[in-house]
């Protein structure tokens, strides 16, 4: 399968501080790929760097065979890559419907069908279309945040800790939704996850990062069964 995202040895960070110190990675068009690793290893910063939210010092990012290194988020969004931040990822004083409208802000065509699709994936949301997003539970807010990003029919979805802060049963639910989105919406998914085991179970492949660099790479199963990784990062 052709790759949708290809990253060649990027270094990135804030100001002059280098946090990502040379990571390479690729994601194919139909894949779910997870990035795991200990805290403070630059996973989230790496995701932000792909999306143009953090400065890339060296290296290249290719999306859909186009070099997007250094582009701004609003330019990247127009190329159908969406990013869902870990926190503060909804507009609390807007209703669910208005949040979805904002997700479709860059679209100028009729997106009403798309809204119905999102409600189809997250039936819970369709129950309170006119409720303020700030009144939703934490899990529902995460679903809404992902729903917003689906309004642009993304070819690639970047998810920062989609299960963080969720109750255990909601974590399973979230992972199922991610699989569903990958299958039904034909969106490739690159996610950073603290909940490494759960994430690797649904992932085609995974990358283990350490100190801002690649450590291991393998299929979800390989990484789950690797004893070193198990000891270090999966809490066994």
């Amino acid at each position, binding site marked *: 399968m052709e790759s949708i995202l290809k990253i060649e040895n990027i270094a990135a960070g804030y100001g002059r501080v280098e946090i990502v110190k040379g990571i390479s990675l690729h994601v194919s068009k139909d894949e779910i790929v997870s990035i795991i690793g200990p805290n403070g290893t630059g996973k989230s910063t790496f995701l932000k760097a792909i999306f143009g939210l953090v400065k890339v010092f060296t290296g290249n990012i290719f999306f859909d065979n186009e070099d997007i290194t250094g582009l701004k988020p*609003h330019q990247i969004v127009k190329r159908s890559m969406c990013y869902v931040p870990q926190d503060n990822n909804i507009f609390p004083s807007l209703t669910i419907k*208005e949040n979805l*409208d904002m997700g479709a802000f860059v679209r100028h065509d009729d997106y009403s069908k798309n809204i119905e699709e999102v409600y189809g994936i997250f039936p819970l949301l369709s129950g309170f279309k006119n409720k303020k997003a700030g009144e939703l539970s934490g899990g529902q807010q995460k679903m809404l945040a992902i729903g*917003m990003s689906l309004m642009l029919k993304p070819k690639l979805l970047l998810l920062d800790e989609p299960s963080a802060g969720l109750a255990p049963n909601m974590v399973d639910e979230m992972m199922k939704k991610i699989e569903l989105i990958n299958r039904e919406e034909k969106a490739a998914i690159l996610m950073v996850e603290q909940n490494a085991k759960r994430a690797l179970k649904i992932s085609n492949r995974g990358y283990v990062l350490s100190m801002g660099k690649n450590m291991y790479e393998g299929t979800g199963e390989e990484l789950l069964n690797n004893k070193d990784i198990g000891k270090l990062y999966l809490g066994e």
Partner: protein
Amino acid sequence: MPQLIINGIIMGSIIVLGSIGLTLTYGILNFANFAHGDIMAAGAYLCLFFLGLNVPFVVAVILSMCITAGLGILIDWCIYRKLREKTSVVLLIASIGAALFLRNVVQLIFGPQLVYYSSEIQMAKKLPFGIRIKPDEIFIIAASFLLIIAVHLFLKRSRIGKAMRALSDNMQLAGVIGIETEKIIFWTWGLGCALAAAGGIFLGLEVQLRPMMGWDVLLPIFAAVILGGIGSPYGAMAGGMIIGISQEVSTAFINPAYKSVVSFMILILVLLIKPSGIFGKKERLA
């Protein structure tokens, strides 16, 4: 008492028009724009200028609103835009500078004396419950009401209006999902300053015009914004009415010269009891 409530609604309408723009820019750009009152005064004097050219009043109001919107956008473009990366204190001080500049330009052109839009004496109409109301005041209430409805529809229905509320909620997220934030900020200044101009004109119509008029009305406007919750246009509407009515009703019990004390009191109480305001969720910075 019914008379005082009517007076309160008139003042409340003026405060609401002033506070919608202030709360939106405060919420989005996270700084208190002290020049907002003087923007109101500039709008009021622009209207005086057009009346001097024998332009019909309603046309003069609309023209002043448009030009004041442009003035607000220009100030943002020339001053605030360059300071956005700095802390909110830098912006706040810059806005005090802009306020002084505007006020002195007004004074330079129109002089420091009191001015009225019209020298004719209006007869108050008598309504039930002993209410007396001048035709001008009916106009102020009706026009403010129409403007507030228009703003409501704009914020709820239009793409740009929804984006303004989104920016006020979470500017970073707005950027992440592809909203061109600078463009929305541009429209926000335009809307806020046009409404401020209307508020200033109505204030001039109800009281009189003075170069200091904007500065004096700034306190109740800030009180309304904070009471309503910073960044919430609906909060500003509710807050403005509450402040306006309680100021006027207070004159039944205290010397009218002290009525702005009421704004202060409400401001202090809100800050102590519910600092986020009626509709606010945001933590206030600085």
